[in-house]
């Protein structure tokens, strides 16, 4: 009962601020501070979005597909890589430094190469998103696997736990908390990198739609696409958060907040 009131009291101030900003924006455009063809007003963006809704949704679907494929694929690769790094010491010393180094490569630079090698299909774009996503996950997972509670490890070794049991029952559950912080970072990266991947050449997706609209001097459409991209990013982040709550129920409430 009181809980709802507390939630509401947390929600309304940022909403009010946001509404105020939008009102200022609208007033600035209608009052002639900006030209309508450079910065469209919020109302005209919504009007344009409603007009081309079916097309907009087609592009959104393409971007969602690309994002999810890349996110899931990248997460899977990141997960397996972290497990291999952890379980095989040789791989750890040989691969881990390279992995960290690889993150200094701006992924966008690799985009054209992937397109060159693999064409304009879905595959090079998915690969690009995967490359961006796997890293935060494997690093977070790896550190989680490597550092479970020393007391727990000592206890279970004393009673003679096998290496596999230690991995499945102690290290992996411990790493799930870390895994989720990696997944949250990867979730926001995946939408971003999917849009960038679409800039590199395709006719479908919000990224290419933005590019075409901006070349055609249709700023309302660019803004509409941006708003949908933001919404996608927030939704994916929210879903990962929700999954975390469902998955890690054992944590004390305070710690989880």
């Amino acid at each position: 009962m009181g809980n709802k009131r507390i939630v509401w009291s947390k929600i309304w101030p940022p909403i009010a601020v946001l509404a105020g900003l939008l009102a200022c924006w609208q007033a600035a455009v209608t009052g002639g501070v900006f030209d309508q063809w450079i910065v469209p007003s919020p109302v005209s963006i919504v009007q344009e979005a409603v007009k081309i809704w079916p097309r907009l949704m087609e592009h959104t679907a393409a971007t969602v597909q690309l994002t999810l494929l890349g996110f899931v694929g990248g997460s899977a690769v990141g997960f397996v890589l972290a497990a291999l790094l952890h379980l095989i010491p040789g791989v750890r010393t040989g691969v881990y430094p390279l992995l960290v180094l690889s993150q200094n490569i701006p992924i966008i630079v690799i985009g054209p190469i992937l397109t060159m090698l693999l064409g304009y299909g879905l595959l090079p774009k998915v690969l690009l998103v995967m490359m961006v996503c796997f890293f935060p996950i494997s690093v977070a997972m790896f550190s989680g696997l490597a550092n479970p509670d020393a007391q727990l490890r000592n206890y279970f070794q004393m009673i003679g736990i096998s290496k596999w049991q230690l991995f499945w029952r102690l290290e992996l559950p411990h790493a799930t908390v870390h895994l989720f912080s990696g997944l949250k970072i990867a979730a926001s990266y995946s939408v971003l990198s999917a849009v960038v991947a679409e800039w590199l050449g395709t006719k479908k997706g919000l990224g290419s739609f933005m590019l075409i609209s901006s070349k055609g001097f249709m700023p309302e459409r660019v803004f509409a696409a941006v708003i949908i991209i933001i919404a996608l990013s927030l939704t994916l982040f929210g879903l990962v958060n929700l999954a975390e709550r469902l998955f890690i129920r054992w944590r004390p409430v305070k710690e989880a907040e």
Partner: protein
Amino acid sequence: MMSDRTENHPNTLQVQMIRKQFGKGLASKEVLGGLSLSVADGEFVSIIGPSGSGKSTLFQVIGGLEKPSSGEIWLDGKETTGERGHISYMPQQPALLPWQTVAGNIEFSLTVSGVDRKATKLKTKEWLERIGLDEYADAYPHVLSGGMLQRVSFLRALLAPQHLMLLDEPFGALDALTRLQMQQWLMSIWEENRRSVLLITHSIEEALFLSDRIVVLSASPAVVLKEFIVPFVRPRSEALWTDPRFNEMKQQIYELLKVGVREGVCSHGGIN
């Protein structure tokens, strides 16, 4: 059934001339200096020694986590030096998996110790009821108090099929009152379910109250200074604390420890 202990029973644990050295050359440090002790079947033995005297290292050697530089560990008449999984263990911190329920924790540890999964369920349920924690069976550990967690941890060690229980300062992290309660609780359960126990403790009273025999160690390198047979009859009660013999023995052990520490300090130029 274990109360008819006789001399011809094989020792559950036999620690034979264990030496353990860490490091090499000049930087090396000898922690265990040819240490021998034994625990008979169904006997409760305590180890007391100054802090830093290598008691935890000794447990690591018995548990197979550390290989001794020389010497042998025998359990139930078989040499197990450097092998793991032959003992049941209760550490100072409860060491319960936070993502498992209380019952789940006990069951998992028992399956690690080689108990059949089905059998663990029944046993766990029955025993949680017996120690009055059945309403916490499906709770996560963070809900329980420190004393309750240590009860679960002790139960987990007690139910394991291994013959020897190693208790590593099990009440060291508890407040004084809880500690006294836990000692009596452990005593009452153990007197009904005799197992071979090796206990590490800093508290002379705790050792006197619980044990059949007390082994006093010197500071590093640890060797056995002296062994005390604790003569008090069982079942024991808190009335023991006011027994003059109890206090006399306490004083004896205390004096011995003081000398042990001084010798340890002298021979190592005051490192401790």
